[in-house]
């Protein structure tokens, strides 16, 4: 990451003028206080603190602070896909998850007992683990329960219920 000084020199940082705010502050500084959104070059042409552009001249105690320091991104989940291995499998449907909030998510239901599946869900420790759909397993909403093969995940040999983003039928 470039240093703040480099960013400022490249004109990627903007600055706000901050005055002291005490009784000896000059009127020019009071007027400039809070002015923001200008690059260092732009501030240089307007006059930085202490360069004689304010009544306090070289005695200026104001500072310039960067005002676009932070960036915030958003992460939105990609739409779900059913793995190709499940296409055409009985019980794999395209139903809306709930009628009243018609979200286009995929719902798996009635996978035959004994179906071997691989978990590709949101729980990182379990991704890629394989399991077998147990007899009478239910698949509701975003959860599926199945028994993991002991070799797949020794610590969790019994029923597992978890969110999935994709379930691949492997056998």
């Amino acid at each position: 990451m470039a240093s703040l000084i480099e960013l400022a020199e490249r004109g990627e940082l903007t600055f706000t003028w901050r005055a002291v705010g005490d009784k000896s502050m000059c009127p020019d500084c009071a007027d400039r206080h809070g002015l923001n959104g200008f690059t260092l070059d732009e501030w240089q042409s307007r006059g930085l603190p202490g360069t004689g552009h304010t009544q306090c001249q070289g005695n200026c105690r104001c500072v310039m602070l960067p005002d676009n320091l932070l960036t915030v991104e958003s992460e939105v989940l990609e739409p779900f896909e059913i793995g190709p291995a499940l296409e055409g499998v009985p019980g794999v449907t395209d139903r809306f998850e709930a009628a009243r909030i018609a979200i286009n998510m995929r719902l798996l239901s009635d996978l035959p007992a004994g179906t071997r599946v691989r978990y590709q869900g949101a729980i990182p420790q379990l991704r890629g683990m394989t399991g077998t759909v147990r007899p009478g397993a239910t698949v509701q909403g975003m959860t599926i329960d199945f028994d993991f093969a002991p070799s797949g995940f020794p610590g969790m040999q019994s029923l597992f219920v978890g969110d999935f983003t994709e379930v691949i039928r492997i056998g």
Partner: protein
Amino acid sequence: MANNFSATWKPHQAMSNVKRTLSRIQKDMDADKIITWALPKVKDAVIERTTRGLDLADREFIPYSEGYARSHKDGMNSPVTLVESGQMLGQLKADRLGKARAKVFVRTGGSPNRQAIAAAHHRGQGVPRREWLGMSPKDMNGLNRDTVLHLESLLRLTGPGLKTSGKAFRGTAPWRVRNPR
């Protein structure tokens, strides 16, 4: 003729003052002080705007359909706040991506998965599109303003380099000119 003009102009010192300030901020960024402080602010900003019924462009969300509002409990007609059980916004999280970068997202969890519901609202998958997940320009403006105030307090605490007190401005936080960019 005598020159009564006694003040000293310090153009070079002015620039080095700016750089010294930036160096000190950089140290606080390296110590994660700034991003750690900002994360809850980011989350609060998203929740606050959304529960006021405003999208990322600060426009009101598209209203619920009459049928939807009728089939739900009282208060589900207007304004649209994307709050029914509160679980979706309850799973909202802000995390650091770098020294000055954060991301906001909805954690996976719940049945149906709130992360999926959040995405469906945001993208308009099966429901009217209501873009909410992220920071609006107004949210960012508020965050930037708060960050400047926070920097002031950090810098004042960490050494004698700055003389500002800013006390007279506390609470008013002047922010009079919109970012021209």
